[in-house]
């Protein structure tokens, strides 16, 4: 079972100044879900298994290079194509802090929140952050810092509805809260 973003929700409730930090891995425009997790691996939904093939058709070396906490920094329309939730699952299970992109395809955007994979829409950061730069993101303020160049950027603020989902611990936790009755 995919993990719900309890860690994030917990931190948010405590009011901590939660920061994510790691190295940037750069990708171009229109990175689609076939590149994030190719169709040939979809006969399983095991996160660990999917993580082994994260980004394989965009960069076969990615899983070797990426370390826990790292970020994907990409151009426009990240996550376009199939609705496979295996894509955000694979990236989350690979230990990434999240994805910073100029824009996201809508199904991926929605599923990433549901899964608790932090994503940040910020065209300037996506354009200027270079491969290998050390990047940090402050979840509360939405400030993205490129620690290598010293530049900071502000991501689009999360819609309040999305913040609610994250605060509840993802969509399923949100639903459990709503329908507690049925599970009794």
């Amino acid at each position: 079972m995919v993990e719900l973003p309890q860690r994030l929700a917990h931190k948010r409730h405590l009011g901590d100044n939660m920061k994510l930090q790691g190295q940037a891995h750069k990708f171009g425009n229109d990175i689609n879900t076939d590149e994030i997790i190719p169709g040939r691996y979809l006969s399983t939904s095991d996160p660990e298994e999917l993580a082994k093939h994260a980004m394989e058709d965009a960069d076969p070396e990615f899983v070797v290079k990426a370390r826990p906490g790292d970020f994907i920094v990409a151009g426009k329309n990240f996550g376009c194509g199939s609705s496979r939730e295996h894509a955000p699952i694979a990236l989350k299970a690979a230990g990434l802090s999240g994805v910073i992109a100029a824009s996201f395809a809508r199904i991926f955007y929605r599923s990433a929140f549901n899964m608790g994979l932090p994503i940040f829409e910020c065209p300037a950061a996506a354009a200027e952050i270079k491969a290998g730069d050390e990047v940090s993101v402050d979840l509360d303020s939405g400030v993205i810092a490129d620690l290598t160049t010293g530049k900071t950027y502000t991501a689009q603020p999360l819609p309040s509805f999305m913040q609610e989902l994250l605060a509840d611990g993802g969509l399923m936790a949100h639903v459990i809260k709503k329908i507690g009755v049925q599970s009794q």
Partner: protein
Amino acid sequence: MTPPMTITEKILAAHADLEYVEPGQLIQARVDIALGNDITAPIAIKAFRQAGARKVFDPERVVLVSDHFAPHKDIASATQCQIVRQFAQEQHLVHFYEGGDMGIEHALLPEKGIVVPGDLIIGADSHTCTYGGLGAFATGIGSTDLAATMITGDCWFKVPETMLFIFTGKLPRWVGGKDLILYTIGDIGVDGALYRAMEFTGDTIDTLPMSDRLTMCNMAIEAGAKNGIITPDEITLKYVNNRALRPFTFYATDPGANYAFVREYDVSTMEPQVAFPHLPENSRPLSQVGQVPVDQAVIGSCTNGRLEDLRLAAQVLNGRRVASGVRLIIIPATPWIYRQALKEGLFEIFLEAGAIISPPTCGPCLGGHMGILAAGEAAIATTNRNFVGRMGHPESKVYLANPAVTAASAVAGRIVGPDDL
């Protein structure tokens, strides 16, 4: 008085019990049909169980189709299908399709009248937007959203802005819905309709057969759209009349409704379109394709696996042979289409031409099975995506086209139109 709304806004408003909605508004809406397949449903079923839910909101409205890696391509995919089957049996789902009853979901649901005009449909499959061809609001979501909807029967949406595409003029021979949508995606790009609704209208659409309308709406997602939609009319009525399993509602855009974007295309001189690797937006008119040899041709998928598509292919293949060294794979999308094609003698033409006839499956479209490409190979396909590695090896290539061009290319061994044979 309520301000004017587009057809998309009206369907969303009706399902949220609101008189009026506007773009950007977040709404909670009732879902008529929630769909999953053998790839996406297992994740949703896990989430459903983890939530402690015991029953789906309505066993007639949760639809499961094991179509992607079926017939089961390996042990892992057989296990996925087993999870779906057990859940469907336990929940007494009325619409669960596998084995000989199974067809490609987006061809099967309209054919069986499970989805009808005016519906709000979500599916854990990006091509769920196909049903916009019937005048329904239909959109793809992830497995977790499907799980939540299977429990509650509703789903939250942000009301999209609508882009209006007006097609005018008579379609030239060998040009159809596939070409219209490839041309449109080529014009606006793969994120040209991101988060938005694409509404197709104009005198060309007024006479466009239902199969072509479904093809157009099917590929709205390839421009990033939330949904594609066509106002239902007499053609729609004729299609749904003897099929619809539930009462349906015809919605239409109000005069004076707001569009975020309007584009008009004169189709009377349009050529068949071919989308080059590795994005559906790389469409070119057939005359500008040049010399492109192909190793494989695929006619099928939720985009172009309907009976009308097979008839077109048969028209081109009749009395001809597939080029030596080329594999032509024809995949009727549903058991009904399969049987009908057999009855009409299309199979005889396909077999005489040297084609392979596959059982209904999504199969090669997403690089699953039944026609995977090796490194360096090229395929022309009536499918919907030509991303890197989509049909197999990351160093293979996929060109997207309509069924007539795909059939002609199989005969020529390179990308050509039927008139070039």
